[in-house]
């Protein structure tokens, strides 16, 4: 198995990142730029940049095993959307990606063999990255090499130093988990409870968020500050609403009512078109996508809240947050109709009671005034 080194990159397997980069012709300047970008993404002071650089340079490229379960491969696509050699792609040079369905050259038993070899060799030290949800309904819903997702995850997690769940499917169940969840899909944290897990949700997550988290782990060997549902606060600490450039329009009360009206053309707030920005935590509004080109709201589409758990069941992408998700007017009409009937009956009872008391009333005379 160890002989199948062709699946790995053409780099000395025990080499450092520095050696790897120079052999690839990556300049020192590009490398420092990457470290500086990473530091700023993590909200770390500039003084830490040399530390990041030194750490990564000398990092023994840790083994990374990437398991893909019930997923659409969108997370991988997001990460690898590099038209030119972008900084994000550099991350692949600082890790030893020993197993990845989409990116690996091998297939079949050779691929599984590579995985097992990496696990054995680096037991306790490798990084496990997971995308896609895990079906609990029937193991047959999603298998790799005949092994169910659940088995493969529990098996592989045993020797992992930490687990990074990438994408909303792995972090919270994602689209398979959406109503009615026919496969019984669950997230990584629902299965693995004894390993540190970093949740990097998004559908897909922003590329630099993925790489930033990896970089943090590589640099510091520890998990970044996480929020109450396991997301790195550096990237998921602010809501889209609080960082959105269209916020002033929200505050002024200028909204797009349809996708092509005056307001839409003027770039007004998309709250009325169902924007979930106010309840979504992610870095889209600041970091943006495609190297900072744009993000959904800027392109005129309301945020769908893809980095939040259960966003698929969040009441409809085009229904504003303050709107009820069910047809309340119909409910109200039925309730009123039923109540009118009930009210008529109760009213009749009231009148009946009055009639009775009128009937049993005997004229009061002066004799009746004393007890």
């Amino acid at each position, binding site marked *: 198995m160890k002989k199948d080194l062709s699946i790995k990159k053409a780099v000395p397997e025990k080499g450092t990142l520095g050696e790897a980069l120079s052999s690839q012709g990556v300049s020192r300047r590009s490398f420092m730029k990457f470290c500086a970008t990473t530091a700023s993404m993590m909200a770390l002071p500039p003084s830490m940049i040399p530390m990041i650089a030194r750490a990564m340079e000398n990092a023994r490229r840790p083994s990374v095993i990437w398991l893909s379960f019930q997923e659409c491969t969108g997370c991988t696509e997001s990460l690898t959307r590099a038209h030119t050699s972008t900084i994000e792609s550099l991350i692949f040079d600082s890790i030893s990606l020993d197993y990845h369905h989409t990116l690996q050259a091998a297939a079949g038993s050779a691929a599984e063999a590579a995985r097992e070899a990496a696990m054995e060799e680096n037991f306790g030290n490798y990084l496990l990255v997971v995308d896609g949800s895990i079906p609990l309904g029937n193991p047959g819903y999603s298998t790799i090499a005949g092994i169910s997702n659940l088995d493969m995850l529990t098996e592989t997690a045993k020797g992992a130093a930490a687990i990074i769940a990438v994408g909303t499917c792995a972090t919270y169940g994602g689209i398979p988990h959406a109503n009615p969840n026919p496969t019984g899909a669950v997230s990584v944290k629902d299965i693995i409870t004894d390993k540190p897990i970093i949740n990097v949700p998004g559908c897909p997550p922003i590329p630099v968020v993925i790489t930033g988290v990896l970089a943090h782990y590589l640099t510091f060997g520890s998990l970044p500050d996480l929020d109450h549902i396991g997301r790195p606060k550096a990237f998921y600490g602010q809501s889209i609403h609080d960082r959105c450039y269209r916020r002033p329009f929200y505050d002024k009360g200028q909204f797009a009512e349809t996708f092509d009206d005056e307001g839409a053309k003027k770039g007004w707030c998309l709250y009325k078109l169902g924007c979930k920005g106010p309840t979504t935590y992610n870095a889209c509004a600041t970091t943006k996508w495609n190297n900072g080109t744009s993000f959904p709201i800027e392109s005129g589409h309301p945020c769908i809240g893809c980095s939040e758990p259960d966003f698929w069941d969040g009441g409809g992408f085009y229904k504003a947050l303050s709107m009820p998700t069910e047809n309340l007017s119909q409910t109200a009409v039925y309730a009123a109709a039923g109540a009118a009937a009930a009210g008529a009956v109760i009213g009749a009872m009231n009148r009946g009671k*009055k009639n009775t008391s*009128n009937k049993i009333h*005997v*004229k*009061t*005379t002066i004799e*009746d*005034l*004393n*007890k």
Partner: protein
Amino acid sequence: MSASIEKGINALKRQVDSTVAAFFSSCVHCGLCAEACLFYTETGDPKRTPINKAEPLRRIWKSEFTLMGRLGKMLGLTKKVDDKFLEEWQELVYDSCTMCGRCSMVCPVGNDIALMIRKTREGMAAAGQAPEGLIGATTRAVTIGSPMGVKWPALRAQIRHVEEDTGLKVPVDVEGVEYMLLLSSMEIMNFPEFIEAVAKIFDKAGVTWTISSEAFEATNSGIQIGVSDIAAELVQRIVDVAEKLKVKTVISPECGHAYTAIRWDGPNLVGKAFNFKVRHILEVLDELRKDGRLKMASKESQKLTYHDPCQISRRGGVVDEPRNLIDIVSDDFVEMPDTGKMNWCCGAGGGVSANERADEIRLKVFERKKAQIDAVKPDAIISACSNCRIHLEDGLEEYNMDIPLLSLTETLAEHLADD
């Protein structure tokens, strides 16, 4: 046959209608009614808050006529209406309320609280919780014909005096006339000058009128004690003679609750619309004024102010007429602060003056009226209710205030033009 708590509760049930239900549903416990009630403002006792006085009615409405109340009753969660509770409330419903209706004017959600207290009295009385003084007055009214025990011979004697003093004839039991005048016992006994004034004015104006020897009493104790059956009986007496004498209009004299009883409650009590009109003496006089049949030869020289009797003004609708009349007999007239329909009660109406137990509080709350009078500093006070008049005289005397109380009718008669 005697009073009982069962009768009281049944009486309260009969009083619940959509107005009562709407009112109790809307009360938000804001307390504004207390600040409009002189029995609270002059004593500072929060249990005299008007809406609180209607608590017996509220409990019956809640437990008998609301879904949640009925469910609560089944679970034994309702507040009881028993003898002990009603006895505790007697002082609030009878001694501390004249049904003046000022609370009904200020309630922000529109509750007619005075009406609710009136209705509450039905239950109190049927349960035997009416004050002794009122029971006595009512008994006399039913058996003798007058709460003060005034019989026809006493009135006939007063009429004789009037005829002697004026040289005019006071028509008695005359058929087919325009007006039949009622009189309150208070007027007959204490202010017979009123009869003289009416005789003079009607004579000058060429009005045909009469007094009935069979039913002359205007005061309706049934309204004051809060027993509609008795009130109806008293009204029926008037209806009977009015129809017998075929009069066009019955005149309610200078008495507050008498007007409410005959004008607004009357037909509803006896269950039939009247085939005659009912007017207050001031309304009749104002009509005469408009017709040019009431002319003054002179005017009052003293500074006058007007005390609006609650049942005539706020609860009766006769607000402008007195002012039109004062206008022709005075050039020095000033309104009290809070006047017209918002004037303050004298404190003695609605049976309070017939209730000896309430004497002390009645005098205490006069201070509200006193404050109004002090603000105006009039030479004399004009009013149109003999009960107000007697009580105000009491109060003024208590405070050593030398301000005469004048009847508007009498004042007009005094200055009546000769031709």
